[in-house]
């Protein structure tokens, strides 16, 4: 079954012809060339593919492109403003919150979803929210620090040294 879908991606209207079985992540990566959204597993568990649909974090590998028809999708490519990184991206950079960077787009999209629901999360809340985002490099410590910093900056507070530098 071929179907033409029309959706908003990073604020711009797009149309594409997809099959029933085309995944949203395939539409984004293979048809729209937005390769910032990654695929790290085939079991819906790793979170490398997290994007926002109508403002909510979802796994783009577990959503059909036809299910996004008429909806608004935000990917990592739409997070920065021009050359200026979003405070959450800047916080990942500041805190060395990545090594290979494969999980990072999903981490940032999940972090933004968390902050939307909970602008001032505790360390525990951050760790719990990342249950669906696997990082095979960093051990999560700096990711948690980055999200706390990104959240603080988004609340309008100066970038803090949230938990100190000692290991938790």
């Amino acid at each position, binding site marked *: *079954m071929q*179907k033409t879908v029309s959706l908003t991606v990073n604020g711009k209207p797009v149309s594409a012809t997809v*099959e*029933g*079985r085309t*995944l949203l992540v395939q539409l984004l990566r293979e048809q729209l060339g937005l390769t910032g959204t990654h695929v790290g597993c*085939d*079991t*819906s*568990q790793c*979170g490398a593919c*997290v994007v926002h649909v109508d403002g*909510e*974090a*979802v*796994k783009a590998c*577990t*959503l*059909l492109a*036809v*299910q996004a028809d008429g909806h608004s999708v935000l990917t990592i490519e739409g997070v920065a403003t021009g050359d200026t990184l979003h405070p959450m991206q800047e916080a990942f950079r500041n805190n060395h919150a990545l090594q290979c960077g494969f999980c990072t787009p999903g981490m940032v999209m*999940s972090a933004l*979803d*968390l902050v939307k*629901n909970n602008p001032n999360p505790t360390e525990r809340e951050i760790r719990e*929210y990342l*249950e*669906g*985002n696997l990082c095979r490099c960093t051990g999560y410590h700096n990711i948690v620090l980055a999200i706390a910093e990104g959240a603080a900056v988004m609340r309008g507070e100066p970038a803090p040294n949230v938990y100190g530098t000692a290991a938790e």
Partner: protein
Amino acid sequence: MYEFNYHQPTSLDEVARLLGANEEAKIVAGGMTLVPTLKFRLAKPSDLVDLVGISSLRGITDAGDALVIGAMTRHAEVERSPLVKQGIPALAALAHVIGDPAVRNRGTIGGSISNNDPAADYPAAVVGLGGTVQTTRREIAADNFFTGMFETALDRTEIVTAVRLPKPQAACYMKFKNPASRYAIVGVFVARTGGGVRVAVTGAGPCVFRVPEMEAALARSFTPDAIKDIAIPQDGLNSDIHASAEYRAHLVGVMARRAVAGCG
């Protein structure tokens, strides 16, 4: 993934027509179980009938002594709902520990109970609270709805429309989760209701089950100590790389005592 036709009907009549006309058609709700199944080519439906366009299936209403939760209500909505937090806080807490936030943003209560995964969380709440499943044809008591591993009382063209859950006097769900998948290795839902105490166990066996001995003991004395000597037979319990049947049997007792203590 095999190819299929995708439909997004806007009425239950149209859903019934599509399911009737296509023997190999399947319902999709949140897709959090079905899409992974399709990706592994473990199912080959000719047609997918998406329930997302049927607005009457979504939402939570307060029916006085019970909450009625539409089949398409997402886990994240149950988790955050003020009605649920007030009427059945244990249910909001249960929804909060399903999978991860992105799964909870899509997965639905109707999909979870229709799928009846042996390790799913909602079946424990629906049986533990003595709920009723409302379908396009009838009302089915929770005790008769979950019939076996991935099996329910539903006919192929019958759709869950809502779940009615009586508000308990107190309830608590305790889950020992698989750290990788977050599904329950063992989860126990304990509820004190007007009709007595109910104890429902998920994850341990092929299908959610009640523990009548614990219910009777807790009806006499609602304390963790009242059930400390009740052993769960390991016969017929699940045994896999994550946990042996013996370990699961032990966990049922531990989780049940914690749930009783958690009822406060």
